[in-house]
């Protein structure tokens, strides 16, 4: 009987997950379609002439006929709607086109670049999550104390600090003055990529990751602190105190359990800030990630690459939000068991 009960549970759970995945996939498809249309329209309206941007300093040596040939080759003379539909047709077949700047398929450029960004964003995501949660718990647990005020002040200052400014500040202090960290890039100059050691890669990762982590901390700290204070004022916290829990044992027993889920959710939902921050941080540190490729793609009118990055970043942020949704469905017994009932 018990075994049968569990397998029934498994079946309904699988069905639930299946309908969740289908719903999410449909939503993602609609989102990407609209997003690509808007991005394409914006690029078409942009005053940047891709040919001029592509030719750059060689302008004097390229005649009008040659420019016309490039434009024709790229299909720039066709009406925008036609160009968009053609691009869309290729994307539907899995072909994102070829980057004008890198002269490589867009997929390859994004793949290589994202791998570099992934290390950076992953490190920042973990550090800001762990540090932010810990600070939030300590501040919320001692609400009103000097420590709590310091943490809040620190978080407000961070929340209003521009990424590039903090990145420059860290560069000046740690790379220029103290010379503890390298001044740029993902690896030392003049060494073949296959000869670079892990230690060297990590050494180059420290400052960009620190910049992103420090900025991510503010949000999660303030949110966790507020949530913990609400938990400590709840009826079940009052009852726990009546049972003999002290402040910190109460936080260990009931506090962490009740604030962990919102914190995890918030952290997954912060993928958009993380990605946006990485564009700026990679730019300042000349770190060859996806964000650093996005800037020239925009400035030099590399339409396939830019649209590819737009689509990819949308999928990335969407994944984060979906994981946040899933966290609640899988981890909160009130939602998980209520749906199965």
């Amino acid at each position, binding site marked *: 009987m018990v075994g049968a009960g569990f397998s029934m549970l498994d079946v309904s759970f699988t069905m639930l997950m299946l309908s969740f995945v289908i719903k999410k996939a449909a939503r993602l498809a609609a989102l990407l379609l609209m997003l690509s249309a808007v991005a394409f329209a914006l690029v078409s309206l942009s005053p940047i002439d891709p040919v001029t941007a592509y030719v750059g300093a060689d302008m004097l040596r390229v005649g009008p006929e040659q420019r016309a040939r490039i434009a024709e080759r790229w299909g720039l003379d066709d009406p925008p709607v036609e160009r968009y539909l053609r691009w869309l047709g290729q994307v539907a077949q899995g072909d994102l086109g070829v980057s004008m700047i890198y002269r490589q398929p867009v997929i390859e450029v994004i793949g290589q670049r994202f791998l570099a960004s992934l290390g950076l964003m992953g490190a920042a995501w973990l550090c800001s999550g762990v540090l932010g949660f810990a600070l939030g718990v300590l501040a919320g647990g001692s609400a009103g104390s000097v420590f709590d005020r310091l943490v809040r002040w620190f978080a407000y200052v961070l929340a209003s600090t521009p990424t590039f400014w903090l990145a420059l500040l860290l560069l000046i202090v740690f790379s220029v003055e103290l010379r503890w960290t390298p001044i740029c890039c993902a690896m030392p100059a003049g060494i073949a990529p296959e000869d670079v050691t892990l230690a060297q890669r990590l050494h180059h990762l420290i400052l960009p990751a620190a910049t992103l982590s420090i900025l991510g901390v503010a949000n999660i700290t303030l949110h966790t602190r507020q949530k913990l204070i609400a938990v400590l004022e709840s009826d*079940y916290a009052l*009852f726990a105190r*009546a*049972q*003999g829990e*002290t402040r910190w044992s109460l936080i260990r*027993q009931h506090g962490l*359990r*009740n604030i962990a889920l919102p914190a995890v959710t918030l952290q997954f939902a912060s993928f958009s800030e993380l990605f946006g921050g990485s564009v700026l941080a990679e730019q300042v540190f000349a770190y060859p990630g996806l964000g650093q490729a996005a800037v020239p793609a925009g400035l030099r009118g590399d339409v396939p690459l830019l649209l590819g990055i737009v689509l990819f970043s949308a999928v990335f942020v969407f994944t984060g939000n979906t994981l946040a949704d899933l966290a609640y469905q899988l981890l909160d*017994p009130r939602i998980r068991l209520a749906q199965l009932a």
Partner: protein
Amino acid sequence: MLSVRNLSITFAMYEAGLRRRAITPIAGLDLDVRAGELLGVIGASGSGKSLLAHAVLGILPSNASAAGQIWFKGELLTPARQEALRGKEIALIPQSVGFLDPLMRVGRQVRRAAQLSGASSPVEAQRRIFERYGLRPQDARLYPFQLSGGMARRVLVSTAAVGQASLIIADEPTPGLHPEVVAETLRHMRELADEGRAVLLITHDVGAALTVADRIAVFYAGTTVEVAPVADFQGDGAALRHPYTRALWRALPQNEFISLPGAQPTPDDLPAGCLFAPRCPLATAECRAARPELRPVRGGWARCIHVES
């Protein structure tokens, strides 16, 4: 076991313009409860019943201050003493399932209560108390939101009865429940008293309290107006001492079912004299001049100048 003497509780409030204002929802609260006795504490909502429970346990909000004396087993309670006694010697049964951690399985919550009460084997203690209250072993794996009304009551009683507390305070344990569940909960309260524990049953349900209590303490606007043996609640209420208690007794459906006109005064607008005077059929100029003292009357206590001792 427990003696509360002239307890008052004051809250500091901040009004617009940051002017400090103090309100005193409890003033002149007195009661005693002995080992093996069930004392029903009755009064309308807003009469300060829950605050009494929190004051005894020492878990009032930080903007509240208590004055007066609370004695437990012959010892004056201080905040440090209360902290040591909470969950061990004094246990609380809360109103609703909302007082359980929504994300923790109920078995674990009962085991934690057992551990805090000093039980040597919380697992064994939880198993035994579930058996005693007719909860199945697998019910321990449920979350609070999965409990039915009756199961929730049994789990809440379990959290208090799992330890060896000699004083149990049940704060409004029968709100909006099915009559059978109410009867079962009241029976559990009675059993706890019969084991030799002192039980404070705080409720606004006069009828429910009368079925199981030994004595009744009646609160009105934060003060004790009468303490009476349950036997005095009979007939036309002639044996009762205070006009408010008599009015409560007459208002019961099985009696005259006539409710007293008017409403209890709010803490920020208390009359200068007897708190009940504005609604009292016996009130005289003397009643409005000064607050009467609580005095012994015919084997009970009453705070009224018109009742002869």
